[in-house]
Every structure is written in structure tokens, then in C-alpha cells.
């Protein structure tokens, strides 16, 4: 089986400082990969390099495109990369305000990606938007409200709907549950887990919340100071941490 995403020796430096160094992994279709680590460990840098938001200094990011099989994303032209970013990829920001158009109604936010790939039938676009709002548990009568009128949890769910409407195969998530209270977090995680199963999505999830990865991720990478210090199956890494930093991380969590 070909991996959906194959990363080899990805390195990003900020001048003399290391953003992330020599990261390699394979992600297979339907697999969810969690990346954990403390603040400043290079998680977000890595995610942004993968998604093409940041230019990496060296290494390869190979993506299994529908048309031509494995291709190096870094060698793609910008139009190709942007096309990929609005069809096969999705990016869920930590702060929904970064990923939504706050001046545009919920329906318009969900419809934007459809219109960006050529949908030109208002009724169809609206029906799909309606359908997706339902799937992320936003009431149908809120379709014409702006995201400014939504709570934080609803905004985050709207952002997820907006990203998944075109049926992407790979989703990048940067702390999707950050800044939400625990009950809302739980519902969001439940929703995400359902959608990932149902659509067979692959995902790369960056978080510092070990509970999130335990629920969602099949495999886990632990980062510290820009390096991957430990990787493996989620349960294995969390229950039997080998590296000193991972042991510290796991033992830092309060047992409720």
C-alpha cells in the first residue's frame, strides 16, 4: 500500500535556531497521526511546513495525488499546491477566526470551497451547506448568521464543516480543541472521531493535550526542541514511554 503522505528529512530553521529538524514519517490512508510536545517544540512549524504554509529548508513531502501518484509537494508549482489545498487537503486552525471569513454567513463560509472548485448552482451549494451544518450539529436556522454570532465551539465546528465539505483526503489540525471548555471539547472530539471514521480521512493533529491524541490518534510522535524523540502506536507511547521527555510529559497530566 502506498502511503498518502510520506515525509523524509524535513528541516526548517529560523536563522541559527531550529524549527524542526530531520522529521520523517509515513501516513497511510485512514490513519490519524498525533504530534505532541511542549510549546516551542516545533509542532506547529512542522504542521505548517507539511501544509505548505511555510517553506521548509530541506527534505521531501510526498503526497499521493489522485492523478499522478506520489509527488513532492515542495516541488509543485504554486497553482498546483493551492489547488491541492482547497480540494484534497484541509487545514483546521486553532483559532477559528483564522480559518473562517467572519464577515460572511455560515452558509457562505461552507460554500466558499465549493464555489472555489467551480460550483455555480445556488440551490445545490445551499443544500450542501445545510447538510454539512447538520453534520457538525449546527441548527439549520443559523445558516444565514455570521460566525461572529456563534460561540467558540460552534465556530470551531463551522470551521470543520467548511474544510470537509469538498471531501478532502488529508486534514491538518492545529490544536483543534484549544481554547474550548472540556464539555465542548468532548463533543467536538466525538464529532471529529465520527467524521474521521465515516469519511476514511487521514489526519495530522498537533496538540499538547494527551487526552485528544489518546482519543483520536492511531500513532503518535513526541517532539522536543525540534526533534522527534519518540514515535509509535498511541497506546504504546502513552502507556510505556521510553524517552525521558515522554515520561515527563505523561506524568505531568493530572489524573482526574
Amino acid at each position, binding site marked *: 500500500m502506498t502511503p498518502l503522505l510520506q515525509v523524509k528529512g524535513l528541516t526548517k530553521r529560523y536563522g541559527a535556531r531550529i524549527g524542526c529538524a530531520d522529521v520523517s514519517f509515513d501516513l497511510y490512508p485512514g490513519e490519524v497521526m498525533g504530534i505532541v510536545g511542549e510549546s516551542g517544540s516545533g509542532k506547529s512549524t512542522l504542521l505548517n511546513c507539511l501544509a505548505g504554509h511555510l517553506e521548509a529548508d530541506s527534505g521531501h513531502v510526498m503526497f499521493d495525488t489522485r492523478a499522478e501518484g506520489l509527488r513532492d509537494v515542495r516541488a509543485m508549482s*504554486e*497553482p498546483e499546491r*493551492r489547488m491541492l489545498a482547497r480540494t484534497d487537503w484541509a487545514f483546521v486552525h486553532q483559532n477559528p477566526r483564522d480559518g473562517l*471569513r467572519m464577515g*460572511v*454567513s455560515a*452558509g*457562505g463560509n461552507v*460554500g*466558499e*470551497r465549493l*464555489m*472555489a*472548485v467551480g460550483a*455555480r*448552482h*445556488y*440551490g445545490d*451549494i*445551499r443544500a450542501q451547506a445545510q447538510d454539512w451544518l447538520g453534520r457538525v450539529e449546527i441548527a439549520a436556522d443559523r*445558516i*444565514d448568521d455570521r460566525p461572529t454570532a456563534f460561540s467558540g465551539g460552534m465556530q470551531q465546528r463551522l470551521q470543520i464543516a467548511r474544510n470537509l465539505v469538498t471531501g478532502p483526503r488529508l486534514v491538518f489540525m492545529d490544536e483543534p480543541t484549544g481554547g474550548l471548555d472540556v464539555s465542548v471539547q468532548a463533543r467536538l472530539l466525538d464529532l471529529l472521531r465520527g467524521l474521521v471514521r465515516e469519511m476514511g480521512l487521514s489526519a495530522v493533529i498537533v496538540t499538547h493535550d494527551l487526552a485528544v491524541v489518546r482519543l483520536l490518534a492511531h500513532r503518535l510522535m513526541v517532539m522536543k526542541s525540534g526533534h522527534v524523540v519518540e514515535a509509535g502506536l498511541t497506546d504504546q507511547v502513552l502507556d510505556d514511554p521510553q524517552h525521558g521527555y515522554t515520561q515527563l510529559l505523561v506524568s505531568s497530566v493530572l489524573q482526574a
Partner: protein
Amino acid sequence: MSDYNFAYLDEQTKRMIRRAILKALAVPGYQVPFASREMPMPYGWGTGGVQVSAACLVPEDRLKVIDQGADDTTNAVSIRRFFEKTAGVATTGRTSEATLIQTRHRIPEEPLTRDQILVYQVPIPEPLRFLEPRETETRKMHALEEYGLVHVKLYEDIARHGQIATSYAYPVKVEGRYVMDPSPIPKFDNPKLESEAIQLFGAGREQRIHALPPHCKVVSLDFEDHPFEASKADHDCDLCGSGTSYLDEVIVDDAGGRMFVCSDTDYCETRRGAGHRGRLAATGQEDAA
């Protein structure tokens, strides 16, 4: 006349503007940057249009200036006088007699011919500006033909008002490539953008020129189930009786009285000269035109 160079601008500046115009004509709908000059009028009064007109004028030209369809409002009068003084060209109010027409907010009702140039005064040339504030991003979107956002605007219109409520500056796609803002003309005029005449758009403050060569394909954007409609007030002109021209609504008293008159004053006058009469013209009162 020795005080000014012909048509105010110096020859080097005119060459620079002509180069931009040629490029704009070669790439229909593309916004060509140019080094806009300080003009003796404030931004927003047509500095871009005036510079394009100055670069196109020749001594044999006959100039017409339109402001919201009218030839006799402040903006039209002062720009016409400006070129009478600095270029000494003949001027006219007649659409058919003019060789160069500078306009603000309207396209004349009378179809233009291949011998004419229509110059628009453009406030904001970027059709994506109010959707995406970053200039770097809008340029990239034009370059990569990423125009989904324009439809988001139209979607919002329908979601909020039940129909496409954008009634002026209605976005068009030129020759299947660039999305263009046709300056704030009413969408009633959009079908007239496909014309025999050369159409030039000058934005002075924003320092952009774009253009439509003759017979260029111009499509107003819409949805399949909400097609584009060139709308106008549902009346006939009260002075000349025309049922097909774009109308202005004029309040005539403080008791709710109103009349509808052609926004294109020359068109209205020509029709009345030919004996056409509207609802209020026969009584000879309230001759607003």
C-alpha cells in the same frame, strides 16, 4: 495656449500612459499599473479618467464628458472645460458626434461605434477588494484565476435578499479569464460592455489602467439558478416616453410626487427633439432635464 502642453500632461507622461493602455488592451481585463500623476483636481473626481483622456486626445477629437449620464453637472462641466482650455479640442453633448467620451457611472444609451473611445473614471479597480483586503493576495488570486470569492459575495446577496442585490459595479469575466470591476456603472449597462468602441478604464488614486478592446467577450457572473438580470426602474421616461433607457427617480414635491427621467440626458433630448413625449412632458411642467 503656450502655458500648457497639449492636453496638460507632458509628452513623456503621455507616452508612459499610452504604453499602459496598449498593454491593457492586449490583456483584456488585466489591471496594468501606471505612474499616475498629480492632477489639478482631487482624487475621486476623475483623475484617472482625465489622464487616460489626455493621453488619447488628438487636436481633431471631439470630446464629450458624462457624469451619471448627464452632460451638465459639475464634474462633467469642469472636466470638459479643463480640456477646452488645455487642449483646445471641440466639445459636444451629442453621443453620436463625439470621438472620445469620458464617463462616470454610465454608458450612453446610443450604441457606440468603432470610431469612438469610451474612457471611464474608476474609483476602485479591484473587484476583489472588499472581499480580500490584501493586495498581495488579490494579485495572486488574479494570477491563479481563483475567483470563487466573487461568487461568495453573490451567494451572500441571495441568502440575505433573496436575489442578487448587487446593482452597480457588478463583476464581469472578460474573455473567459480576468474578473473585472466595470467601475460603478449600473448593472443595466453591463450588456453594453460588449461594444464596437474601445473602452478604457483609468483609476488615478489606485494607479491602474484596464481596458476592453472592441468586440471583447464580457460575461456578468451569476448562478445557474439565479441568472444575471440587467434591471432598471419599471417605468417609462416621463419626458421622452422611452421604455428601454435607464431611469433616474426625481422627487418633485414634498407630497410624495416623483418622476422618472432618462439618466442619459443626450438620449432624452434627442428623442424629444424627434417628437417623442412622456407622461409629464406634454403638460410642459417640471422640465427637470
